[in-house]
């Protein structure tokens, strides 16, 4: 009797769980990081990350569902199975790899400081001592700024958009972010007219890692490998180039993998 109950329970569970291939792959995205991820006026998600996610899904022949998630809760939400992968410009770093796993990179751009054109200080630790540097909380830039500019006051924001807003208002002296983001969503806009890059590229394997990848939970090796293969495939068949050219004037893929 007990065995029969168990069996029928098991059967019901089997029926209740659709097979893996039919289940849509849920992808965590941010939606507040233009031009990689933002919302159109009608509320639909758009951007480089979103298009790459769709292209990768199409390549893997899986249905995908985009799940919006605030940046600083991204990794906890992945671990809590709110979604199965993160396509949100997340750099592959050692510290993150202790918590989650990554596909191969899908782009790599350097970080740079932005400040007023006539700021009068240099983008070094000495120059930034006593200055307020804005960064997005939980981003690689938080790690790098705290490591490289110990004399500065690091001011943390929930989104990159808030960092640019306070830079324009003069509440912070400089900000550190991806150079492409800074160019596309601030320096090329009217509110960024008086601002420019401060110093050159910042690259640091410890904090910035080996480029930006798609994050999955530890142990999801099949999904991770399928995502890596799909990235290679869309690189090779020209899909990547088409998406890239819709947003950027040059190829943002960077050097070959691991060529930092």
């Amino acid at each position, binding site marked *: 009797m007990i065995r029969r109950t168990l069996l029928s329970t098991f059967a019901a569970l089997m029926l209740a769980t659709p097979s893996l291939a039919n289940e849509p792959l849920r992808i965590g995205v941010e939606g507040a990081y233009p031009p990689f991820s933002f919302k159109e006026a009608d509320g639909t998600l758009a951007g480089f990350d979103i298009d790459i996610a769709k292209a990768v899904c199409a390549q893997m022949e899986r249905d995908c569902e985009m799940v919006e998630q605030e940046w600083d809760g991204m990794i906890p939400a992945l*671990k809590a199975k709110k979604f199965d992968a993160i396509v949100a410009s997340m750099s592959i770093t050692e510290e993150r790899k202790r918590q989650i796993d990554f596909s191969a990179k899908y782009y790599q751009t350097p970080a740079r400081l932005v400040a007023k054109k006539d700021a009068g200080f240099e983008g070094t630790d000495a120059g930034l001592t006593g200055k307020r540097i804005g960064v997005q909380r*939980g981003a690689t830039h938080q790690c790098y700024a705290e490591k490289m500019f110990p004399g500065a006051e690091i001011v943390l924001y929930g989104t990159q958009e808030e960092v640019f807003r306070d830079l324009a*208002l003069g*509440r912070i002296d400089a900000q550190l972010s991806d150079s492409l983001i800074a160019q596309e969503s601030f320096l090329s806009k009217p509110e960024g007219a008086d601002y420019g890059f401060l110093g050159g590229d910042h690259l640091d394997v410890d904090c910035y890692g080996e480029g930006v990848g798609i994050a999955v939970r530890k142990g999801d090796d099949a999904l991770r490998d399928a995502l890596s293969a799909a990235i290679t495939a869309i690189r090779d068949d020209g899909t990547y180039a088409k998406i890239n050219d819709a947003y950027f004037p040059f190829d943002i893929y960077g050097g070959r993998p691991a060529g930092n």
Partner: protein
Amino acid sequence: MMEQFLAWFPLDISLIAANFDRFLYGVWLTLNLTFLSLVLGGLIAIPMAIARASRHRILNPIIWAYTYVFRGTPLLVQTYLIYYGVGQFEVIRQSWLWDPILSQAWWCALIAFTLNTAAYSTELLRGAIVDTPLGEVEAAIASGHSKWGRLRRIILPSAFRRAIPAYSNEVIFMLHGSVVASTITLQDILGVGRWLNGRYYLAYEGFITAAGLYFLIVLAITFAFRKAETRYLRHLTRRNT
């Protein structure tokens, strides 16, 4: 033994311990924002509550509208309006208010919190004044007190005492509400918790430490209010006969 325990324990205690000085600074920031706003808000609330309770013809509707707006909108929205909203106006950024005050996140939080708690405290104190037992007022009149004299010597002291239990809730709400400071870059207790989570990509450590610290502060507040209640409300407690 200890190492085994730490390896098994689901929280990374060593990271919390290594950054505990930051948390202590967070405690300081949370406490100074909460209590400064309570003191300032309370001072504003006293004349407003008197004006409300006495149904002052001009002031009463204005103050009513103010408390209605500030009690009817979330503290987070009020704080955003002051921090991000006000800064949008060129006029304000050019004014004397900008540089020392409105450009600073701490001041924006203090202003928002003060206006918010003043609204709640006003209504709370107004209720206590209106509920003053008629006998107390009659006795004051009979013993020759002027209008202000009986307000100052009889009604207000009596109302303050009776408002203590309800006010303890307001103090705890304000402490909990102060987490809003972390959304405008301040490193209050929650701000430090979020910093820790963001820096080391952890989900719980920062929040659990923050929760524990808030809990301890609430414990201290509750204790202080219980002491105050037994002292100042003794005349209202049931006597053993």
